Structure formats: C-alpha cells, structure tokens
C-alpha cells in the first residue's frame, strides 16, 4: 500500500510521467514564450519523447551507450509487470483447472481388456536418456524462469524481500548457466526422434476423432500418433525459439541493443510459457492420464494391449514381427526378477 501511495504522489508531482502515451507537443508554447524551460526541452530529448531517438556521444564505447534513458524500457517493464505476469498466471492456473476438469469427466484413460503383462520394446536406453535429460533441464529452467517472472507478486508476499532477492539471484544465475543445455538436449531430441515424428497418412483422422479422448471410437496411430507428433514439433520448434532468444539475452556480445533485448525477452517469455503450459498437459497424459504410458519412458517397454489401443498400426507390426515378450521375460530383462538388489534381497 505504502509503495502505491508513494508512486501516486510521485506521478502527481511530475505530470509528464503520468502521460506516457502520445508525443508531447513541442511547438505549442504559451503565447510570447520561445521556450518553457530550456532544461525541460533537453529532458524531453533525453527521455526520447521526440519522433527521433536522440543518440548522444559518450566516452564509453558500446551498444546504446549514447542513449541516456531508454524510453521503450519503461513500456517493456510495464508490459512485463502488468500484462505478462497477469496473463501467464491466468494461463498456468487455467491449464491446471482444465486438466482437473478433464480428469473429473474422463478419468484415467484405461485400456479395453486391461493390461496383459506381455510387453514390447518401445524406447531404447539412449532415447529415454535423451527424453529425461531434456525433461530435467526443462523443469529446472521452467521453475527458475517462473520464479523470475512471477516471483515479485507471488513470492515476496510469502517469503519477504530478503529471501526473494536471494532466490531471484540464485534463479537468474542458474537459469543463465543451465539455459544453453536446453538447446543441446533439444538437438539430441531432434536427431534421435525426428524420423518417427514425420506426419503421414492417417494422422489427420486421429485429429478429426479428437485423439480418442473425446468419444469412444478407437483411433488409428503408428509408432507415434498425431497428438504425440504435434507435441514433438511444438517442443522442437518453440523450443528452438526459446533457446535462440535465450542465447540472445544471455550473450549481449553481438551488438544487440536494448530494444532488441526487450522484444526478444517478451518472445522468450511467451514461447516458454506456451511450452510450460503444454508440457503440463503432456506430463498429465504421460503419467496419471493414461494407463500404461509411463512404463514406456521408465523401462522402455509397454504393454502390447497399450500398443494396440493407442498405436494400432505399430502394435500390428509388433504382432507380425513377433516382438512381444512374456511377463517373466520382461521381469528378467528389466532386472526385477529374483535377486533384485545389489544387497541380495529377494523381491519375487
């Protein structure tokens, strides 16, 4: 409250500040006066209120070093503090509400006839390592990024300014350090999964039938279905945008000025938020949302009934090529049979 009152007072004392929009009319002085105040004109120029940006000279050589006050910065800061935080909070809240509603209505999407216990290999060790590397890096960046974006309105009231300043510094430093790893793991993801994620005939039907989550009818899918492919391309394409904008922000060594940084920052935040929002849906669908899906990313094997239900064309291939293994064989291969732990205790 105190701050707001203070700000209000400040605005009343400096009327020109409260009218940030619209260029001030230089020429219309009260009659008989050539200038209201020479200092005022200079101030207007420095504040970049004219049509042209005043680029002064400075002993310091560097990008934007001739600009004393960056007017667009205020606009950006306002946008960041008001619109960005508000809408991103709404988006995050909305996705949780939506998922909860979906869960209430649809429940856990099961498999007709249940799980058989007979498994097929879906992902190699390497593919799962790539997935989880990307996931770990992404989660870390999402959390630290959200602390930076929403920390002020959300965390200061909770922890106070002292603690938040610490948290913000830690988040910023680690976010910047880990950031480039997202691009590296994204490229690993791109190369190891791209072949199976190219759209093909039949994918559109999947979309038209709402992916089988709406209504009852079974929908056809290959190794990856239309929904998974689309999620893949969202990750790759938006992820690339987030990575590149992130690199532009973290490495101000290519002559990018403040305006570029501001625009890039806004793009970075919006794209990252989009990824976070969709990823929450992905996490839900991959774990609680559908029966038997998480297994594929945990052990690399999925139930054959799961494959038949969600990826019938691939499932058929598994049947034809005789790739299905028994429950006992599966236990053996994933190391859950007989002597299980290194300390020798038996589990089955």
């Amino acid at each position, binding site marked *: 409250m105190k701050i707001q009152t203070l700000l209000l007072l400040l605005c009343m004392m400096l009327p020109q500040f409260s009218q940030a929009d619209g260029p001030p009319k230089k020429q219309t002085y009260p009659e008989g006066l050539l200038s209201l105040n020479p200092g005022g004109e200079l101030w207007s120029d420095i504040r970049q209120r004219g049509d042209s940006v005043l680029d002064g000279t400075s002993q310091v050589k560097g990008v934007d070093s001739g600009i004393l006050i960056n007017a667009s910065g205020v606009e950006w800061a306002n946008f960041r503090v008001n619109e960005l935080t508000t809408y991103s909070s709404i988006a995050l809240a909305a996705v949780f509400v939506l998922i909860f509603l979906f869960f209430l209505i649809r429940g856990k999407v099961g498999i007709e006839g249940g799980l058989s216990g007979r498994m097929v290999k879906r992902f190699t060790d390497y593919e*799962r390592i790539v997935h*989880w*590397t990307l996931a770990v*890096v992404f989660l870390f960046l999402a959390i630290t990024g959200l602390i930076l974006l929403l920390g002020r309105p959300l965390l200061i009231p909770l922890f106070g300014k002292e603690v938040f300043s610490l948290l913000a510094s*830690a988040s910023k430093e680690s976010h910047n*350090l880990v950031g480039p*790893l997202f691009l590296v*793991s994204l490229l690993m993801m791109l190369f190891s999964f791209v072949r199976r994620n190219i759209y093909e005939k039949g994918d559109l039907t999947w979309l038209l039938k709402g992916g089988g989550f709406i209504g009852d009818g079974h929908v056809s899918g290959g190794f990856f279905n239309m929904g998974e492919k689309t999620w893949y391309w969202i990750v790759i394409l938006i992820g690339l945008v987030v990575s590149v904008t992130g690199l532009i922000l973290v490495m101000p060594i290519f002559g990018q000025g403040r305006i570029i940084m501001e625009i890039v920052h806004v793009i970075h935040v919006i794209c990252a938020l989009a990824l976070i929002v969709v990823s929450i849906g992905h996490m839900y669908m991959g774990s609680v949302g559908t029966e038997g899906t998480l297994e594929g990313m945990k052990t690399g094997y999925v139930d054959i009934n799961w494959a038949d239900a969600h990826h019938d064309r691939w499932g058929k291939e598994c049947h034809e090529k005789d790739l299905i293994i028994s429950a006992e064989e599966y236990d053996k291969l994933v*190391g859950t049979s007989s002597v299980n732990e290194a300390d020798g205790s038996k589990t089955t």
Partner: protein
Amino acid sequence: MIENLIDGPLWYLSLAVFSLGVLWQLAAILFASRKPDLSVARGSAGSSAIKTVFSRFLPHREMRARIGIQYIAGYLFHLGLFALLFFAAPHVLFLEENLLGFGWTPMPHWAFIVSAQAAFLGLIILWLRRLMNPATRLISTRDDHIAALLTFVVMLTGCLALLEEFTALRLLHRFTVELWLIYFPFSTLMHAFTFVPSRAFTGAWFGRRGVDA
C-alpha cells in the same frame, strides 16, 4: 552463528575426515600383504602397470560402439568438474587464501561457465543412464545415488552462488562441499584416488603374462 560454524569448525572437521579417510584407505590398499606370484613372468609387471594406468583412459576399439555415450558423458562430467574445481576464479582464490598460500591463473569466466555446463550435462546423462539401463540399475547401490546426488547438489549450489553477492548462498555452497568431503572416504567417490592402484594392479597382472591390457 551458522556462518561461524560453516566457515570454522565444520570446515576443519570435513577436511580432517576427508584426508584421514582417504589416507587410511590408501594405506589399507598399499600396505596390505600380497602373496608373491611364483610363476615365471613372461613380461614386465612394472611397465605394464604404469602403462595400464594411462591406457584405460580410452575405451578399447572393440567397445566404442557399445559404450560411446558413457565415455562422452563421463569425460564431459569429469573434465568439467576438474576445470571447475581447480581453475574457477573463486576456487583459486579460496585455495590460495585458506589452504595453500599460493594461487595460479584462473580460467576466464566464459570457460568457467562452459565447464559447469559440461559437468552438469555429463552428470545428468550418467545418472540417467544409471537409472535407465537395466544392468546399471541392478548393480547401483544407495551409495552410488547419494554420491551422485551430493556431487550434483555441490555443483548446483555453486552455480546458484555465481553472483558472489549473497553470504547465504556462499555458505550453502560451502556447507554442501563440507558434506561432500565428509562423505567422500566412505563412498565410491574414493575411485578418484583408488582408480590408480586398481589399474596398476590389473596392468601388472596382465603384464606378467605378456598381455597388453
């Protein structure tokens, strides 16, 4: 209070546990009785021991396709960690002021950042492989996971404190380092030292038999 503890007694305690623990283990290895081999040697055990200490840094040609990712991730992690440990500017300064009394040229900031990134990526991949591969999942013990987690936390708190502005963050980093040092001699982290005698023993064994190990 906490600050005094972490910068004072706990630091000395961890150093003592670390160095005494490591020395005790190495002594137990080197001074343990070994039966002499009575067979007639074909090759030199000594030179093979030394050679094997170095040759095992690279995988056999026959193995490369199978374990490539582990070697790449392993090197990213270990080289990154070593660079950080001994050449990051704050570490060099710390060692000079608190332990050694002399310093050396630290690496530039960008190299510091790149090393940290390499170490993080390497450790994450290695740890995930431990969890994803059925063989490593089966043989991994609680110790392996604690050691990986502690190392990860030490690296993470280090990177949280990058700005070097907040005492609390610096103390957090130092505290985790102290935990790591105390845990070290009790765990497989010991491999940082014992890999040398292990390779030498095996190199000597093969060397006596005239096998290039």
